[in-house]
């Protein structure tokens, strides 16, 4: 009986919808003045009622589809009850029995499949701030984040190392970004990870304990934390000791985990169907329509960039990682040489908020542009060939216009000359 590292991930992702999950407050909450973006619903005032955000539902389903999940045609929202000062209503609206999607998978480069258990939609909580004021330890509460749409993605315990976890997370983040549904910014907390770790006989025969790690705010920390935790547990097991079921934090300075809270008994959340929200019933056609809206998976886009534009694999991967960069490339690659443009973008030498304004930096002129200029100005060409070389200036000007001034005029002149003295133009 050999024990192996058994790691499952719970990933929370904030959706970047305009409004919150169940009310019309802005969902963007980063660095806003405390409690300035609340309403009766997300502040949990008496009598307020939730109405779900359609776009958040669509996006949650699209995430499920992108992860190869099955979609529940009938889903409900449920109430999960617990008391905590950042939970305005004393319950969180989430999905328990019938999440939007379930049973998916994501493949690693090695071909290994990580099974996805479920993808469901819920609401975020407020934020706590711990402070000492006048010698008293106090907790401050800000509800701006309360009610922001949150998608939870849960994997089966199929991951075996920190490195695999990191690869999985990177792939997942690339998919979520390509869907355009979340910033997945670990530092801002729009993507949060909770790995649970044990040494088990297999993913189907789990150990009697598991350890959850919290407060991991980068993929690097996730990898290091998982690896540290595996080592720590293994050492205990080798001594014949059973690791304790608990939640541990991660300390980047020491690259070690530390005990935070020992779970005595399983929490009793008293789930029941949210009576304020009627069920969501989808048709197959509706789901298929969402599937059609899925952008191509990042891997496939990378392959196409390499094939169609002759980009290097690494450049293509870097472009695909950032939807803004990719969009910019797709929009402007006809105006500038594709490889040049791609390099400028990935090396951050171009301002993505404006069209490309290159200053005579291109080293070649697109032959198509030369062709076009010559074709459009046949009368001028005739004049040139008749000996009136002064018209060259005009032709160079035309090339400059077509390339938005991104070509060295000397270079343009050389290229034009080559063509005019070369074989006759096809008409």
């Amino acid at each position, binding site marked *: 009986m050999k024990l192996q590292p058994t790691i499952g991930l719970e990933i929370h992702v904030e959706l970047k919808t305009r409004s919150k999950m169940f009310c*019309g*407050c*802005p969902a963007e909450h980063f660095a806003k003045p405390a409690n300035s973006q609340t309403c009766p619903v997300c502040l949990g005032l008496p009598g307020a009622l939730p109405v779900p955000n359609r*776009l958040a539902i669509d996006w949650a389903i699209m995430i499920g589809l992108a992860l190869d999940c099955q979609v529940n045609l009938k889903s409900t929202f449920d109430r999960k009850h617990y008391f905590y000062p950042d939970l305005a209503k004393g319950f969180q609206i989430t999905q328990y029995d019938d999440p939007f999607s379930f049973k998916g998978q994501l493949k690693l480069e090695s071909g290994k499949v990580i099974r996805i258990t479920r993808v469901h939609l819920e609401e975020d909580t407020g934020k706590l701030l711990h402070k000492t004021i006048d010698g008293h330890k106090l*907790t401050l509460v800000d509800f701006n984040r309360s009610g922001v749409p949150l998608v939870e993605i849960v994997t089966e315990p199929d991951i075996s190392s920190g490195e695999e976890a990191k690869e999985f997370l990177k792939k997942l983040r690339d998919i979520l970004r390509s869907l355009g549904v979340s910033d997945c910014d670990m530092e801002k907390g729009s993507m949060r990870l909770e790995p649970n770790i044990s040494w088990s006989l297999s993913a189907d025969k789990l150990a009697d304990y598991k350890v959850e790690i919290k407060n991991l705010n980068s993929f690097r920390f996730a990898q290091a934390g998982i690896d540290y935790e595996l080592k720590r547990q293994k050492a205990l097991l080798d001594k014949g000791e059973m690791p304790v079921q608990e939640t541990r934090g991660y300390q980047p300075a020491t690259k070690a985990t530390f005990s*935070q*809270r020992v779970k005595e008994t399983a929490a009793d959340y008293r789930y029941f169907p949210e009576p304020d929200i*009627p*069920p969501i*019933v989808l048709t197959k056609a509706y789901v298929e329509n969402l599937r059609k809206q899925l952008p191509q998976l990042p891997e496939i886009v990378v392959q196409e960039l390499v094939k169609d534009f002759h980009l290097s694999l690494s450049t293509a991967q870097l472009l695909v990682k950032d939807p803004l960069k990719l969009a910019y490339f797709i929009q402007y690659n006809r105006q500038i040489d594709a490889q040049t443009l791609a390099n400028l973008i990935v090396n951050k030498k171009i301002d993505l908020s404006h069209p490309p304004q290159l200053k005579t930096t291109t080293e070649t002129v697109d032959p198509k542009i030369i062709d076009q200029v010559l074709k459009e100005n046949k009368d001028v060409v005739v004049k040139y060939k008749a000996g009136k070389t002064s018209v060259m200036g005009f032709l160079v000007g035309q090339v400059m216009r077509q390339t938005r001034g991104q070509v060295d005029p000397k270079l343009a002149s050389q290229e034009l000359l080559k063509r005019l003295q070369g074989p006759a133009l096809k008409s």
Partner: protein
Amino acid sequence: MSSISPKLVKHIAKLANLPLSAGQINKFSSQLSNVLDFMGQLSKLKIDPKKASPHLDLTNVTREDKIDTSRILTQKQALSQARKTHQGYFLVKAIFS
């Protein structure tokens, strides 16, 4: 026959975040037993065990992803009914996570 022991009453009170006095714990132990024993007659009803939700016939009631400025409270309004606040925040006794 008491189906709800004082120990169970304490457990339920903890789940429900309700402070109960010793007197209330004993009183509730007998009253809750009485009430729940009576409600237990429901098990006589033969029921399709399919999961049921409380909703009537409505489905798919959603809202568009739009900001509704008419309902947003100012920070002052949000905090207006709280007993303790501090620089724009609600204030509670220290919570250790």
